[in-house]
């Protein structure tokens, strides 16, 4: 079970208080009607799924209820940073990996 730091509550809480929200920074096209098939498909279905550094969204459902972003290493599952939506992705050194 992950220990997830919620940047809104400024608390580290067990994973079961949160819901995973998928990859972060996947931007919904501003005008869906003007989007090409390829771009629309990419937005809906294609994900980077990296082995290593990964930016993802979590929602603190059993706490403040808010969304935020987390940087996690998908090999060690270590959380390297947590930041609020709209904030730039922090620079981190990847610590583990193949």
């Amino acid at each position, binding site marked *: *079970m*992950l220990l997830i730091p919620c940047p809104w509550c400024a608390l580290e809480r067990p*994973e*079961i208080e949160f*819901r*995973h929200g998928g990859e972060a920074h996947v931007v919904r096209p501003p005008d869906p009607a003007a989007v090409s*098939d*390829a771009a629309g*498909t*990419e937005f*809906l*279905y*294609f*994900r*980077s*799924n*990296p*082995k290593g550094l*990964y930016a*993802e969204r979590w929602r603190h459902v059993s706490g403040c209820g808010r969304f935020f972003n987390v940087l*996690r290493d*998908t*090999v*060690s*599952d270590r959380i390297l940073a947590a930041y609020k939506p709209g904030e730039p992705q922090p620079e981190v050194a990847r610590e583990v990996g193949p």
Partner: protein
Amino acid sequence: MRFSFLNVMRQALSHNEGWPEQWRSPEPKAAYDAVIVGGGGHGLATAYYLAREHGLTRVAVLEKGWLGGGNTGRNTTILRSNYLWEESAALYEHALKLWEGLSRDLNYNVMYSARGVMMLAHNVHDVQVVKRHVHANRLAGVDNEWLTPGEAKAFCPLLNISPAIRYPIVGAALQRRGGTARHDAVAWGYARAASARGVDIIQNCEMTAIRRDASGAVSGVETTRGAIAAKTVGVVAAGHTSVVMAMAGVRMPLESYPLQALVSEPVKPMMPCVVMSNIIHAYMSQSDKGEMVIGAGTDAYNSYSQTGGLHIAEHTLEAICELFPAVRRLRMLRNWGGVVDVTPDRSPIIGRTPVPGLYVNCGWGTGGFKATPGSGHVFAHTIARGEPHPLAAPFALDRFRAGRLIDEAAAAAVAH
């Protein structure tokens, strides 16, 4: 050496020390007609059918670890074909038919056991979904039948059908031809049969790059054991597909999740079939060694850690203890995880990619072991002919652009 009554007797007399190696372990050659990346069941089956059905024998299977060390050797071995949509039922039924003759075909006992797979319903919604599956399957010619709680209990006496439990059993679907098989034997049997037909099985060989010529087509691969030239590369890398496809600059509609299972200490035979419950995330069967084999759901987040969270296993065990009170006092022996590649519609991706010469077979997620023979068979056809096998055609990567999704979330969300 073939496995036959006579050979088994002969070898017994010499203390079983005369059996030869089951497959050759050659050094990689400089070039092959086709390279298969991934030595799990699906990759090995692909190589076998390439050699047997299409006469391609200059084929190598590259495996970064050991054969079946990925999900093939980590899965809970449930086989069935009662998927909802025609495309899926046809593909999984093709596989189930191959399972029925596989031991004979490979001259290797894969221990296919048609002990029946039962899927429980716990509420009105479940009943509707499960009955819809039963009807759809029967129309598609796939066996699946509806059981009352009493009939379910008669088929599996361990079941707790008391109406007083938290998620009472209100009915079940049963596919009698479903069952289990021995996971390692599937990898080993295909490897042995493919090797006997000239396929090179190369373990401890990780592909690290995909080479492309000036036109963008595949020209070979780089590996930890040197470069190999090949105009055809088939990627069958399960949880690592996104990573491998990125070597050719191809993005995939996949996310990799940890999926875990556990087994108990061995006990006398007490569980005659496989029982699964999608809604309360639990399923169980008994191995021939006597261990109760229990499967849990995936974790909530993508990860390559090959380790599932303890709370996920706990959730499953709570359900198991309620459904099968007789196993409450059993101790668990081992718990492990795999990395499964999940697609948005929970159906696999089989076929061509935007890169000429590069083919992919992936997205089997939590439930691809059952498809191993069928998957290898249709993928070999797709690679050898350069165009999809009719059963594989609906599962092309392009379906996400075309919007022709094959939504099997209800069939495959947790269950296998």
